[in-house]
């Protein structure tokens, strides 16, 4: 295979993106498709919109460039870049979830880890309001351990009968 072969990716809304092979194979799904010789024409990605695909490609490009440089300083820089990359999406939760789904479909482990950890931190930071009014009362308790006592009981009873 040529070293700087270009691969065309087509999103669900028909837009085509041309990327280098090294960037495209960050995704294990695409990598297997290429290995199975399905990449002669554009690779269709019916589950990914163009907006999300653009972001994914931006992420992969950055990581491929960073691994080429192989500089120690780049580790912290890369982490900072990742944080800035994902911070935009924290505001727009829909994009964040679409990124998770895209990373899962395209099988890009580092992006999946990054996005899932971001959502986990948001859950920890209580950014997802509670649906039920009764459950809301628990969040207003300052003492975290009281939450644990009250509600582990409830949850544990459920699990006890479920398992």
């Amino acid at each position, binding site marked *: 295979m040529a070293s700087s072969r270009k691969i065309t990716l087509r999103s669900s809304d028909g837009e085509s993106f041309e990327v280098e092979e090294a960037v495209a194979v960050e995704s294990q799904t695409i990598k297997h498709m290429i290995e199975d010789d399905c990449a002669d024409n554009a690779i269709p990605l019916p589950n990914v919109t163009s907006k999300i695909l653009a972001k994914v490609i931006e992420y992969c490009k950055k990581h491929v460039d960073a691994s080429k440089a192989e500089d120690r300083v780049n580790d912290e820089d890369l982490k900072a870049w990742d944080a800035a990359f994902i911070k935009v999406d924290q505001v727009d939760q829909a994009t964040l979830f679409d990124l998770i789904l895209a990373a899962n479909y395209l099988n890009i482990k580092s992006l999946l880890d990054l996005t899932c950890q971001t959502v986990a931190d948001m859950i920890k930071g209580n950014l*997802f309001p509670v649906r039920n009014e009764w*459950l809301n009362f628990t969040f207003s308790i300052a003492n975290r351990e009281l939450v644990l006592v009250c509600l582990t009981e409830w949850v544990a009873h459920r699990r006890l*009968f479920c398992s």
Partner: protein
Amino acid sequence: MRTRRGAWYSPPDACSGDTATATATATIKRTRGVAGDQAACPRKRQSLSSGGCDSFDALPDDLLICIFSKLGASASSPSDLIRASLTCRRFNSLAFHSLVLSKASSKCLAIGAKNWCDSAHRFLKLCADSGNMEACYILGMIRFYCLLSRGSGASLMAKAAINCHAPALYSLAVIQFNGSGGSKNDKDLRAGVALCARAAFLGHVDALRELGHCLQDGYGVRQNIAEGRRFLVQANARELAAVLSSALPTRSLLPWNHPQHDADAPRAAVAGCSLLSDFGCNVPAPEVHPANRFLSEWFAARSAGGGGSAGDGGLRLCSHAGCGRAETRRHEFRRCSVCGVVNYCSRACQALDWKLRHKSECAPQERWINDGDGDNDGVGAGNDDVMAVS
């Protein structure tokens, strides 16, 4: 049947296939709901937000489990995960999935001793059953020392130890050295050294110290003073490396002066810990494992002011604050040979406490004439009952 409080039900379609629900739970939940209502009424009702959990509907269950695993692994207290499980019905059924629990960090399992209840016990058991070794270790310690069920506690710790959990290996070594849970004759020094060596090779600092002292004294293993000294130095180096890697401000590593006995209180307070005094560094004390913290809190709550005693039958506590272990029979722990006031479960605890605190307080006192040893040895049992200061 409650129509407003949808979350009290778990209709079969809402849960993922692996957590089957039983209608029997509805009765139980109804009674709990009453209690919850009475508590909720005085609170100001918060408005329901339309976003929140609904956006998660796009994600399949396995991705949600992935998110919760990361949440559990990075949680700083149990309430992080518990709170997530209360957000909505779907979260609740997935947050306690065994995959999530198996990755929970030790901080996520750090239940306080004053909150100990059946449900906390069940929670830890759930985590242990799902393959979380930290949970096995913590539950093992709690059962062995606090709940006094030695057999199940030891077997839980053994399960963690088999999976190369260093603190569990070290705890089992301490149990073997002291013959905890049995009589004085149940001590098995060679087994203790073997377990300690395994923990030490996994990098556990206390185990390294213990092994170093055993080698120096020829305790359970052939004496090799140089090798022992090497392990002690390695323990100190590892401790320093751990502190450095946990990004503490560098000003804490200033050269340290041993606090004087006279009232030099402000300087002594600033000096922090004397842990690496032989290297001339000032390093804070290592962070206490949740299991040890639980033990300390448990016994502190139960000893109504009796300094250092576990309350029942005059059983003493290890005088090292970060350890928390209690004796399982009288005179199991050994005391400082100089002052005879403090006692320790292991040499590692003694060495740490000496540097942290005891060095400045230790002073020769009137030696006890009547040891009052409950076991068979008489007055001459000097080797077993006292430890020389290293």
